[in-house]
């Protein structure tokens, strides 16, 4: 059992667990900063699966999977940076950094003319 558990098989399991943990956090927590952290943790889970696949077996690691992970990390960083900028912008506008519940806030039935 010990030999079969080389990093190539162990870490993808960790990656799957991180993906699920991040998804749980993304659904449960409503503050935007925590949701962005949850998305990052999910991304790290996916990259751990990718790198686990690259490191399988005792052959030298697969450079294509590692290159894809590097590309994925840079894409994740830029998406996170933009998400943080959007969060600050939303906080400036509404005073809150949380997505208000309810599907649509733009129903104007509370508008004076409509009543």
């Amino acid at each position: 059992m010990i030999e079969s558990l080389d990093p190539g098989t162990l870490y993808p399991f960790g990656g799957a667990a991180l993906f699920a943990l991040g998804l749980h956090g993304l659904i449960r927590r409503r503050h935007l900063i925590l949701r962005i952290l949850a998305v990052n943790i999910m991304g790290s889970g996916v990259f751990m699966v990718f790198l686990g696949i690259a490191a399988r077996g005792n052959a030298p690691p697969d450079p294509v999977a590692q290159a894809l992970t590097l590309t994925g990390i840079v894409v994740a960083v830029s998406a996170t940076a933009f998400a943080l900028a959007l969060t600050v912008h939303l906080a400036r506008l509404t005073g809150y950094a949380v997505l208000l519940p309810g599907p649509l806030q733009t129903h104007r039935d509370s508008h004076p003319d409509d009543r």
Partner: protein
Amino acid sequence: MNAALLTFDFVLLAGLLGVAWRCLASTDLFRAVVLFITFGLLLAIAWVRLEAPDIALAEAAIGAGITGALLLVTLERLKHIMNRPRTDTDHDPAPPPDPVASDADAPGAAPTGDAASRAADAGNAALSCAPAPARGRWITLVVTVGLAGLLMATLATQEHDPGLQPTVAEHMDVSGVDHGITAVLLNFRSWDTLLELAMVLLAGLGAWSLGRHDALPARPTPGPVLPGAVRLLLPVAIVTGVYLLWAGSHAPGGAFQAGAVLGAAGILVSLARPHELPDPDPRLLRIGVTAGALLFLAIGLWGLFAGPALLTWPSELAYPLILIIETGATLSIALTLVALFIGGRSPREDT
């Protein structure tokens, strides 16, 4: 020996999952961010264990240097916005309820502790957030645990597949570099890398389109410590960035790691700001941010007309071409990361 490594892996994975869980379950944003920075550190060590030093390098440069600083400054901006006296009523007629009052009952939000640190964080009251709502707790838990189980079961059925490692090794001599990952990134799958540069640029454009950045006056510090540290770290960071860029062709390193290190150095200078930051002409800044991808595409077009397809490098010219592209990419990435850190477009652009 590999028993020791195996226990190391188990402890590392347990640590990663524990830190991630505590980070997402915390009711204080600052604690979540610090836990996330620790998560990035443990992640870099995990990439080392998976024999991927390049990715560990990128994770270190981006996790420690860029994401950590970006999150901390975002928290400061949120705190500044929340605590700002709501004089501008046109945006929000009713002032938002006082955060401390509404969250006083939140469990775990007000830990006991020594007065100084507590007082130091009086301003942090805006950074506490309510714990997750009670309803829907079990459904989400069942769904996510089920998903994790399914994923692990699927991964367990997959037996070892050599992947593309043999094919890459076969074509290494033609690729112009002799480090596998750089060959894949800049020769075999260069289209992915070009689109990824576009993605970094697009994030910069998106952040700029939202609004202008705050004023950035010089902020001299009372003591000599910060300027001294910046004076020491800046040259070393630049030299390390150039070294990583150069080493990319035959050892772990490359455009993104170098760009991230130079970007982190830029962020350090924009934070310390011993003297007025040079406010570049917005037109030059826009060209500088786009230069990396434009140069990459321009060189690629030559392949479209002469060679079999777009982005083809002739094998004898491959190494110099790849080096030029990597240099352009490094500068553009560093510039974009600093611009993303500063936040908005420069006020000079709209005058």
